[in-house]
C-alpha cells in the first residue's frame, strides 16, 4: 500500500491506496499555518484504521510548488515515517496530483513580488521546471499553449477572464504517479526562486 500526503497548500490531503489503486483511507484536511498540529493526529488515525503498519510499502509526498513551510513539513514528516517504517519515500510535484485533470495541462500560480510561474504537466509528469515571469509572460504562455489551465492557489493568479481552474491536490492521484519499481530519491521541495530585485539598500527618506 502507498501512503500519500500533500501539505503544499492550505488544503492538505492524506490517503492510503493499495497498489491496485483502491482507496483504503482518505482524509482531506484544511490548515492555516498549522500543518504539524493537524497532520500528526491524522497520521495516528490512519495507522489505527490500517491496523497493521507493515501493510505500507511506499510513501509519496507532494513537493510543491506551494507553501514554503507546508512543503517542508510534509517532506520532513514523510522522511521520518520512511526511516521509522523502513520503506521508501518518493517526492512527486504536487501539481501532478490534480484529480481528473486532462492528459496535458498548464499549471500556473503566483510566485510573489510580481512574478508568476508556468509549467506543463503531461501524463502525470511535470515537463521541465516551472518558468517564472511577469503577468504578461503568464498571460502569453497560457494563450500560446492553449492548454487547459489550472492553479493550486487559493485564488486565481490572474483575473477571472483568463479561465484558470482552481484545483486541489488529491493524494490518491499523487500516489498513482509513483512507480514502485523505480528506486526513490530523497524528496526535495520545488522552490520558486523569486527573482526579487536586490537593489542598493535604499532607506526611506528622512525628515
Amino acid at each position, binding site marked *: 500500500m502507498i501512503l500519500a500526503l500533500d501539505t503544499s497548500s492550505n488544503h492538505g490531503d492524506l490517503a492510503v491506496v493499495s497498489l491496485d489503486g483502491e482507496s483504503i483511507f482518505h482524509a482531506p484536511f484544511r490548515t*492555516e*499555518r498549522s500543518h504539524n498540529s493537524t497532520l500528526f493526529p491524522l497520521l495516528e488515525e490512519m495507522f489505527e484504521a490500517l491496523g497493521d503498519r507493515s501493510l505500507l510499502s511506499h510513501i509519496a509526498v507532494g513537493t510543491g510548488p506551494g*507553501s*514554503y*513551510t*507546508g512543503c*517542508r513539513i510534509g517532506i520532513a514528516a514523510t522522511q521520518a515515517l520512511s526511516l521509522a517504517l523502513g520503506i521508501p519515500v518518493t517526492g512527486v510535484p504536487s501539481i501532478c496530483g490534480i484529480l481528473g485533470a486532462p492528459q496535458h495541462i498548464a499549471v500556473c500560480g503566483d510566485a*510573489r*513580488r510580481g512574478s508568476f510561474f508556468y509549467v506543463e504537466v503531461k501524463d502525470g509528469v511535470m515537463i521541465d521546471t516551472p518558468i517564472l515571469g511577469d503577468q504578461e509572460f503568464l498571460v502569453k504562455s497560457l494563450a500560446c499553449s492553449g492548454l487547459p489551465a489550472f492553479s493550486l492557489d487559493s485564488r486565481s493568479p490572474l483575473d477571472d477572464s483568463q479561465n484558470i481552474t482552481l484545483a486541489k491536490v488529491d493524494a490518491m492521484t499523487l500516489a498513482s504517479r509513483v512507480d514502485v519499481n523505480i528506486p526513490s530519491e530523497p524528496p526535495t521541495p520545488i522552490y520558486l526562486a*523569486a527573482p*526579487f*530585485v*536586490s*537593489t542598493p*539598500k*535604499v*532607506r*526611506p*527618506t*528622512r*525628515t
Partner: protein
Amino acid sequence: MSITTHSPEETEAFARNLAASLKEGDILALTGDLGAGKTHFTRGLANGLNIPADVAISSPTFSIVQEYSGGRLPLYHFDFYRLESPHDLLDLGWDDYLDAGAITVIEWADKFPELLPPHTSWWHLSHGAEGSRTIAEKIH
C-alpha cells in the same frame, strides 16, 4: 503624517490607537536608529490588538521573529537587523507569514525593502530635541 512624542509611553499610546484601524494582512515597516522607539511602538500595537498584557514584547533581534496570539488578530514581530540576505528571510517562510492573515510589524525593515509588498505602510522613528521622538509615515 508625522507626530512628536515625548516619552516611550506616548509612543506606545500612538501605536495603540493606530492598532484599532489595522486589518488582517496589514504590514507595518519600522525604520529608525537604535533607541528610536521601534520596540515601544510594537508594544503599543500589541496592546492595541488586545494581546494579553502579561506577554512580554521585546525586540526579536536574535529570534528574528516572535509570534503573539490571543489578541484581536495575531501579531508577527520581525527584526531584520541580523538577517544578511533576502534569502535568509525567504528561508524563514516569509511568504507564508504574509499569507497568514495576521498583522506583521518589522523592525529594520529597510534592509530588504524589495521583499515587502506594495501595501506595506512605512513608519520612520527618529530622535528629536530633549528626548522627544518623531514618528513619520513615509511614502515608499
